[in-house]
């Protein structure tokens, strides 16, 4: 472990909704200010920012609004939803190596009120997308459905099992006042819902959400002097895996192995903690099959068992072996490219989740695994 350890000292968020009228930059400012207030820090303390590269708010734009004096470290993370936890990994590396003291990471999104990225595909398709979009494989849901069908063939994953993933996470959302999708859903309701891209249905897909979440990273030493109990960045990792294509990842050795497999190897190499030590997990859930894959690739169960775990209730709070997405995740709380999974991971370690795992001291948070991905293992101090 590095001489300096990094920790999360503050989290902040706006409300989540299908449509928020305020501009994206305003939401970013609100979440950042809330995270700094939570950490007991002022904008003058911020000296670094790490940002998603699909974020429309520039770091210096946010810095100008907050009145930050100087960013002495700044970076962007690529790969869309795969880069969420990577912002924390880069922030931790900056803190551990003395390049920054207080790093602000955030995601502000007006998805519901803006145009979807896939909907910009039009006419002649350039770049690597020319090999699948002209055939109509244009939306993320189509691209994941192709993997999911093969996954069902190779490992026996069933539609009922995917339904259990969606229903379990929905039940968690129903306990969370901030969640935006809290309608009752059982597996029969799930199976009766319409297909978007067979074999995936509407409830297999994440929400369309507006909102923002921000996270403040600093050294563990400094965090111990701040109001909130520090949440230690026990391990951070990224991974691409071989021959990876974003989303339509069909040309490498296995289309059912995601970049999470490589990310998991790095994550566990950097800590003595093991999957069995994890109290709950916040797994990237843009689509239900990604949750099943992550359960297996991060080492909680064997290949082919993720769906079985879901059906057996192992992902459910409070009784399951590994409660998953305890705030409702991207499927039922809000879809902010996974940043609300990070804040929920922090709440679990602090003991303030609305579906609190008693004494949670080790929490896994993962980012999008249909693309080069990242993950963080969060832990309590001492």
């Amino acid at each position, binding site marked *: 472990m590095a001489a300096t350890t990094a920790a999360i000292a503050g989290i902040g968020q706006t409300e989540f909704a299908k449509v928020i009228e305020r501009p994206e930059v305003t939401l970013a400012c609100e979440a950042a200010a809330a995270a700094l207030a939570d950490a007991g820090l002022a904008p003058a303390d911020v000296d670094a920012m790490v940002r998603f590269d699909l974020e429309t708010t520039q770091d210096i734009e946010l810095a100008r609004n907050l009145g930050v004096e100087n960013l002495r470290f700044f970076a962007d993370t690529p790969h869309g939803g795969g880069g969420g936890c990577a912002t924390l990994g880069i922030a931790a590396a900056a803190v551990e190596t003395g390049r920054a003291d207080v790093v602000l990471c955030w995601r502000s999104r007006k998805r519901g009120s803006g145009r979807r990225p*896939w*909907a910009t*595909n*039009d*006419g*002649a*398709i*350039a*770049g*690597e997308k*020319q*090999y*699948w*979009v*002209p*055939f*109509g*494989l*244009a*939306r993320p849901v*189509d691209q994941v*459905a*192709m*993997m999911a*069908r*093969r996954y069902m*063939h190779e490992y026996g994953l069933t539609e009922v099992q995917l339904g259990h993933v969606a229903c379990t996470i929905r039940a968690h959302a129903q306990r969370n006042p901030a969640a935006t999708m809290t309608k009752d859903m059982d597996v029969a309701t799930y199976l009766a819902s*319409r*297909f*978007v*891209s*067979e*074999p995936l249905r509407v409830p297999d897909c994440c929400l369309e959400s507006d909102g923002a979440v921000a996270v403040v990273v600093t050294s563990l030493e400094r965090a111990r002097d701040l109001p909130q109990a520090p949440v230690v960045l026990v391990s951070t990792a990224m991974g691409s895996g071989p*021959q990876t*294509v974003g989303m*339509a990842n*069909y*040309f490498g050795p296995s*289309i059912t192995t995601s970049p999470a497999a490589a990310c998991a190897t790095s994550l566990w190499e950097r800590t003595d903690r093991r999957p069995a030590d994890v109290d709950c997990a916040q797994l990237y859930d843009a689509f239900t099959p990604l949750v099943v894959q992550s359960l297996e690739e991060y080492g909680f169960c064997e290949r082919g068992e993720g769906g079985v775990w879901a059906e057996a209730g192992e992902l459910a709070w409070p009784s399951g072996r590994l409660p998953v997405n305890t705030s409702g995740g991207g499927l039922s709380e809000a879809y902010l490219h996974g940043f609300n999974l990070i804040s929920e991971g922090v709440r679990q370690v602090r003991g303030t989740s609305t579906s609190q795992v008693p004494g949670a001291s080790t929490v896994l948070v993962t980012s999008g695994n249909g693309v080069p991905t990242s993950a963080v293992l969060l832990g309590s101090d001492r």
Partner: protein
Amino acid sequence: MSETGGVPPLVPEPDQVSAPFWDACRRHELVVQTCTACGRARYHPRPMCPHCGSMEHTWEPASGDAVLYSWVVAHRPVLPALADRVPLPIVLVELPEGVRMVGNLAGDAGELVIGMPMRVAWVDVTGTCALPAWRPAG
């Protein structure tokens, strides 16, 4: 599969690397980029062989055979260019040459089963673009 409702169809925009592949498609010929040095096929097209690092390659005729590797059926909401085509089956096939390709399904295929043999067919999308499609063989 011509223009629908004034919306231009989705077509690939060939670049320097991919042009030979799409040019062959326009002639209804399926070709596979093959490394001159190590002889291994690759898809999607790219400048360098990921197996041996050679920049030299040829475009070898493929047999036109494949097996069904996976498939989806897209339903609304879809891009305007696809609105008249849903529900739209899209397939992933594996070629004996050792590569996988995304493609459309040719005709009314009936029941699809992973592993079933497929045969290439062609769809002329525009005057300058044909795309490979696949129909169950035999």
